[in-house]
């Protein structure tokens, strides 16, 4: 029974790397379920575990894939009869059909290999004109006994012993293969083969040959097993490692081939933020007493004021206006900021976006209607080719958009404030500052560069509520998170 539970715990680990968040309580429930339904019926097992371990459609998808991969090598030990350890196996019999009524044969991942007892035994099953010697070493005995089951069990045990589920990189395959072979008793086998070969004599040579054949066959199987473990465990964690790196890298250093990965990360972040902030908070139980509500709810107490009710305010969603510099190197940052903001459409319904290098243009409609890449490409084409002129941008903003800015608006400006020594027109920014709820300036350059050369941050910074360095996804996430967290 405990092997069953151990296997289940391993499966839960696999699920967790596949991004299905299984809690310990749910694992316990799954164990209880296993005790009730048993393991004979694969479909029942899959349905039941899916109900207990995965709690939304995405998780169910991930669960299905993991289940099929993990349990196609049935790891359950059996106490049951359908274990025909046939000596003369065909090689493709390895993948035990789990639909059959006796799927509980302890076969490890070496499915392809078939019985390695068969490989060596095939020669031996012919007539021998000398006596067949007994193998002395543990492993040798095991291999020649033809008990496929036992070998698989031992392999899985050795795997657990050397913690093959800690495998991280593909190149560790050889290392783990060797470790597992050693844990299974390779040394003893090698020694015996050496001895036999020294002794000479036909029976000894024959046995040595058998043992060597069996050993090589076993090595193949172990290698297979390790590879499958790699696909189950490491593949995902390698991906997680890459994700971590991508989050921290400077966005201008990203190459096109990373864009897709980064996009996925952005979506994930957006989803997290959505789930945190989707409930509109009410601040209550403090502040002003709401007399009307108090009186009404206390009528049941004959007018005595037992229950005090306070005025509550709904924390409203901010209206965001996002002005992005799309020239040259800053365009990468703009791309990801816009991507982020549009993934948050659920909790930031009113996002208006503008792009500029010298002239300012509204691109809201474009982003709402087309896909992200197309919209970005078109934006770059239309607005990305001028020399940066913040003064002109601000003038355009004032003449067309300033009237829509009110006390609930947050204005985000993403740019490096490099004005090519033109007129910064920071008084316009001051006007915006007065009218809007918040003005946030995001600058991809590190703070030390903010006053170097033609950067006008010194003039713009006092007109902003907040200025931030923003050049990686981590910064983006923080900024957007703060955006959502603000109380009215």
């Amino acid at each position, binding site marked *: 029974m405990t092997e069953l539970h151990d296997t289940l715990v391993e499966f839960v680990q696999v699920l967790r790397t596949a991004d299905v968040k299984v*809690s310990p*309580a*749910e694992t316990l*429930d799954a164990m*209880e*379920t296993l005790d*009730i*339904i048993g393991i004979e019926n694969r*479909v*029942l097992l899959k*349905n*039941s575990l899916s*109900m*207990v371990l*995965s*709690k*939304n*459609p995405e998780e*169910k998808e991930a669960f299905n894939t993991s289940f099929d991969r993990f349990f196609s090598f049935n790891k359950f030990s059996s106490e049951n009869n359908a274990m025909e350890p046939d000596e003369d196996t065909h090689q493709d019999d390895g993948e035990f059909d789990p639909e059959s009524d006796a799927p509980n044969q302890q076969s490890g991942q070496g499915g392809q290999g078939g019985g390695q007892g068969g490989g060596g035994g095939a020669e031996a099953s012919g007539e021998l004109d000398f006596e067949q010697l007994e193998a002395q070493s543990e492993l040798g005995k095991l291999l020649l006994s033809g008990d496929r089951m036992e070998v698989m069990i031992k392999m899985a045990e050795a795997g657990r012993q050397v913690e093959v589920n800690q495998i991280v990189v593909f190149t560790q395959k050889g290392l783990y293969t060797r470790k597992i072979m050693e844990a299974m008793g390779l040394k003893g086998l090698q020694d015996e083969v050496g001895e036999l070969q020294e002794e000479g004599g036909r029976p000894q040579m024959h046995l040595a040959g058998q043992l060597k054949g069996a050993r090589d066959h076993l090595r193949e199987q172990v290698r297979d097993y390790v590879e499958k473990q790699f696909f189950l465990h490491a593949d995902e964690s390698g991906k997680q490692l890459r994700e971590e790196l991508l989050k921290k890298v400077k966005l201008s250093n990203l190459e096109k081939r990373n864009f897709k990965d980064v996009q996925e990360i952005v979506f994930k972040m957006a989803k997290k933020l959505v*789930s945190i902030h*989707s*409930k509109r908070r009410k601040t209550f139980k403090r502040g002003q007493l709401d007399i009307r509500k108090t009186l009404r709810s206390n009528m*049941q107490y*004959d007018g005595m004021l037992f229950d005090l009710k306070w005025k509550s305010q709904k924390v409203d969603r901010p209206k965001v206006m996002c002005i992005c510099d799309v020239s040259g190197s800053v365009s990468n940052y703009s791309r990801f900021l816009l991507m982020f903001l549009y993934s948050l459409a659920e909790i930031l319904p009113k996002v208006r976006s503008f792009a500029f290098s010298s002239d300012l243009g509204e691109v809201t409609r474009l982003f709402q209607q087309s896909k992200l890449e197309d919209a970005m490409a078109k934006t770059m084409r239309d607005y990305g080719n001028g020399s940066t002129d913040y003064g002109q941008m601000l003038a355009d903003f004032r003449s067309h958009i300033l009237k829509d800015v009110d006390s609930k608006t947050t204005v985000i400006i993403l740019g490096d404030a490099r004005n090519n020594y033109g007129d910064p027109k920071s008084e316009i920014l001051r006007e915006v500052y007065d009218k809007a709820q918040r003005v946030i300036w995001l600058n991809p350059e590190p703070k030390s560069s903010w006053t170097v050369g033609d950067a006008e941050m010194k003039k713009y910074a006092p007109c902003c509520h907040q200025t931030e360095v923003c050049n990686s996804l981590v910064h983006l996430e923080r900024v957007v998170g703060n955006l959502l967290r603000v109380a009215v």
Partner: protein
Amino acid sequence: MAIKNDDKLKDIEAIRGHFESLGYICSVEIATAVFLAYHLEKPVLIEGPPGVGKTELAKTTAEMLDLPCIRLQCYEGLDESKAIYEWKYGKQLLYTQVLKETLGEILDGATGLAESVDKLHSFGDIFFSEEFLEPRPLLKALKAEESCVLLIDEVDKSDHEFESLLLEMLSDYQLSIPEIGTVKAIPGKKPLVFLTSNNTREISDALKRRCLHLYIPFPNAELERQIVRARVPDIPPKLNQQLVAFIQELREMDLKKVPAISETIDWARTLILLHSESLDPELVRQTLNVILKFQEDVETVQSELQGVTNRAIKAT
């Protein structure tokens, strides 16, 4: 758990069979969920698009087991006075008035405020006892003597506070009433709890963790035909096949509200009423508003009507 008629829940095929005999055709997953809910004593959270039979499942289970079905419909602002219990204020007030006379007797012999108050205390909290408690659905379900089926419908329409309220009930099958204490379910007679959700918002993780999760998708063609046959017995098989094929194709289209099983059944009934033996485009055009509830959907489908109908007719 040992509720009455629980031999019907002995294994999954039996459950399916019983459901079928009551007119509810279901898949293996659904029967598994009911089986597990009973044996693991856990509530079931049923999610899926509207109209696939989530509420029906709870009602049919209650019918199958011959237990009362207690229903709690959720909405924003639902709180514990409507869901768990409320005091019978009117009764309390009335009794105090009526018993004003006897007050004199009780306090007889007590002099001064402190003694009087002590005497009153010694009589316990009479006015906050079980007789003055008005149980609402959740409490009723817990106290039911022969167990019951508790259906908490559309839990995603309620707010986070209500979900937190439910947590104690769903994990330990008990409720705390400050004045009385903790009310626990009778061991062995816990209610069978079903929660339904349309996924309009994300249910909190704490709630999900305590439940088994069942997702009921739209059925495939075979299952849908069986369902229509069970609910509308006098439908000719050819018409059944055609209309199911039509609806299945409609579900692939980009509509604002995709027709669900209840719409299929309604449409089947409509077509029977109109004495039709098979589909034809004119008939479909006239009855389109039975399956589609938005004008823009009707327009979308009308433009493709000919093609879809022909394909559906050919499917027989």
